[in-house]
């Protein structure tokens, strides 16, 4: 009796709602991921915003609503302003240099044939190395007294001094211990590490350009620079847009390298390498000012959002021609 009763059911469901059956499967597939995004991404983001409106206390019952109080503090916090300026400087150095170097190296890698695979792997290797390990090795190489860079400078200077050409000598540099050089020194490390990612993406983009475009232009008498200017660059524009947006977001959130490269005073001498992300981390987990740290991260989010929207608009406008 029972099997008879059960059998017509699935058949009826199949016939009645083929489309809604598909929708049901879709919702079933999305159930866990959507819960993940809502609970662990969207909700915490809103919570962070909410937290920044209350004076911080470990006990939630004792938190008092104070509106934009922390945001008012942001305006007068000179250390934050320093971090903000540094972060923008990092972004302005890292993004263009990475982009240009990445494109040049990708072009060079495309020009060579022998050992191409090995070259590719070597340029990608720093990207694979943990940021922590990278920061330590570089921090050590930058070291004033024990660093390999200063050792090279000393040997270079001795070499020229012995030959009486003193104007070629270079004094040892303070690198990370000088407020003037620290930020650039850290930026060099970030560029060195992230370059491989840019190269791989550019190589992929260059592979996607049909060779007949170049052949046609060559027949018309176009030279190397003209080919690059009028074919490679315009066709790479979506790839460039992707890389600019992704590496800007990355640079604005810079943390790993900065926190690890200085062993004693994180953020460098006179906060010269401090970034917004590092400042937020220090405020939250060393000073335990969670509410204020939340306000700092909301500020960072707004900055990223505005810059990304401007970039998206810029690139989509440039694409329509």
């Amino acid at each position, binding site marked *: 009796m029972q099997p008879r009763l059960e059998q017509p059911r699935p058949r009826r469901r199949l016939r009645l709602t083929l489309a809604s059956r598909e929708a049901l*499967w879709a919702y079933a*597939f999305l159930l866990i991921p959507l819960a993940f995004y809502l609970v662990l991404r969207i909700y915490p983001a809103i919570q962070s915003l909410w937290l920044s409106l209350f004076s911080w206390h470990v006990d939630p019952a004792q938190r008092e609503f104070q509106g934009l109080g922390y945001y008012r503090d942001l305006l007068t916090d000179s250390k934050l302003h320093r971090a903000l300026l540094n972060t923008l400087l990092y972004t302005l150095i890292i993004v263009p240099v990475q982009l240009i170097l990445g494109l040049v190296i990708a072009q060079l890698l495309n020009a060579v044939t022998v050992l191409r695979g090995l070259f590719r792997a070597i340029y990608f290797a720093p990207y694979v*190395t*943990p940021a922590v*390990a990278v920061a330590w090795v570089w921090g050590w190489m930058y070291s004033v007294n024990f660093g390999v860079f200063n050792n090279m400078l000393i040997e270079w200077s001795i070499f020229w001094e012995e030959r009486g050409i003193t104007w070629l000598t270079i004094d040892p540099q303070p690198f990370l211990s000088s407020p003037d050089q620290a930020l650039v020194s850290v930026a060099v490390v970030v560029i060195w590490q992230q370059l491989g990612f840019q190269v791989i993406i550019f190589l992929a983009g260059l592979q996607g350009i049909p060779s007949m475009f170049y052949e046609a232009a060559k027949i018309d008498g176009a030279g190397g620079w003209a080919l690059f200017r009028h074919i490679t660059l315009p066709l790479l524009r979506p790839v460039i847009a992707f890389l600019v947006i992704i590496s800007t977001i990355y640079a604005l959130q810079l943390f790993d390298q900065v926190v690890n490269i200085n062993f004693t005073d994180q953020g460098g001498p006179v906060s010269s390498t401090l970034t917004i992300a590092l400042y937020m981390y220090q405020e939250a987990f060393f000073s335990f000012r969670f509410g204020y740290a939340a306000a700092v991260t909301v500020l960072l989010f707004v900055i990223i959002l505005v810059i990304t929207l401007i970039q998206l608009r810029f690139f989509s406008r440039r694409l329509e021609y």
Partner: protein
Amino acid sequence: MTVTTQTRTEVGAAWNRPRRFRTQPLVIVAYLLLGAGIVIMMFPILWMVLSAFKDAREIFGFNFWPKTWTLENFREVLFDTDFPRWFLNSLIVAVATTTSVLFFCSLVGYTLTRLRFPGRNIVFVLILSTLMIPTEMLVIPWFVMSSEFGWINTYWGIAFPGLIPAFGVFLMRQFFETLPRDLFDAARVDGMNEFGLFWYIGLPLVRPALAALGIFAFIGNWNAFLWPLIISKSAEMRTVPVGVALFSGEAGTAWNLIMATNAMAIIPVLIVFFIFQKQIIEGVVLTGTKG
């Protein structure tokens, strides 16, 4: 079907095709510039690896090659520190998250392209928008949430933020979009259910993308620093990057030990990278051409 597979093999062939060694002056310049670049790219990594073989006295010297090669540093790190435990922790977290990333990102990517349902675009935009939220903004609520639920100092606590990255969903969506719908309709008529379609037909066709996503997920989670640093409280629950970073307090400036730790930390990532190198590039090439 034929169209997509054709472009795929063409791209792969162009990439891997051995070409004649051209001796134009420009090519020689390219080799010289690339060679100089390689010195800069490899010097810090080689310096790190070679220093790991130097003894404590030689470590402050400036010679590139160790005068006397020693394995003492590795022995000390392996037997006298918690490094093996950190290594195991990192491995557990990276393998678990990578598995989750591969399954869920491809499932969501498949659902967003192959299934029609109300609210599809809203779901996609919702997931994409999470890409813009900085990790720093989420870290405090995650920490509060973790202390409420007792996730601090647990594997779940370390791993949960990386389980379904929006980047992966976006990548997989782009790949499933390249597959023809007819193929799935044929199998659907044959009575295969939607999960079977995803598992037996969709997944095998996007294997290069899965390899690329797998390697990026593994690198990302193996190297993850900020969140594991916050959530791991005891020395036994640290991951390799956290353990190495906090090594300074425990080992002082024992550079030889630190470098040995770093050298060992990159081994699994390098193995994963070399195994999947071809697939990564093929994967990225395909997304690149899709634009």
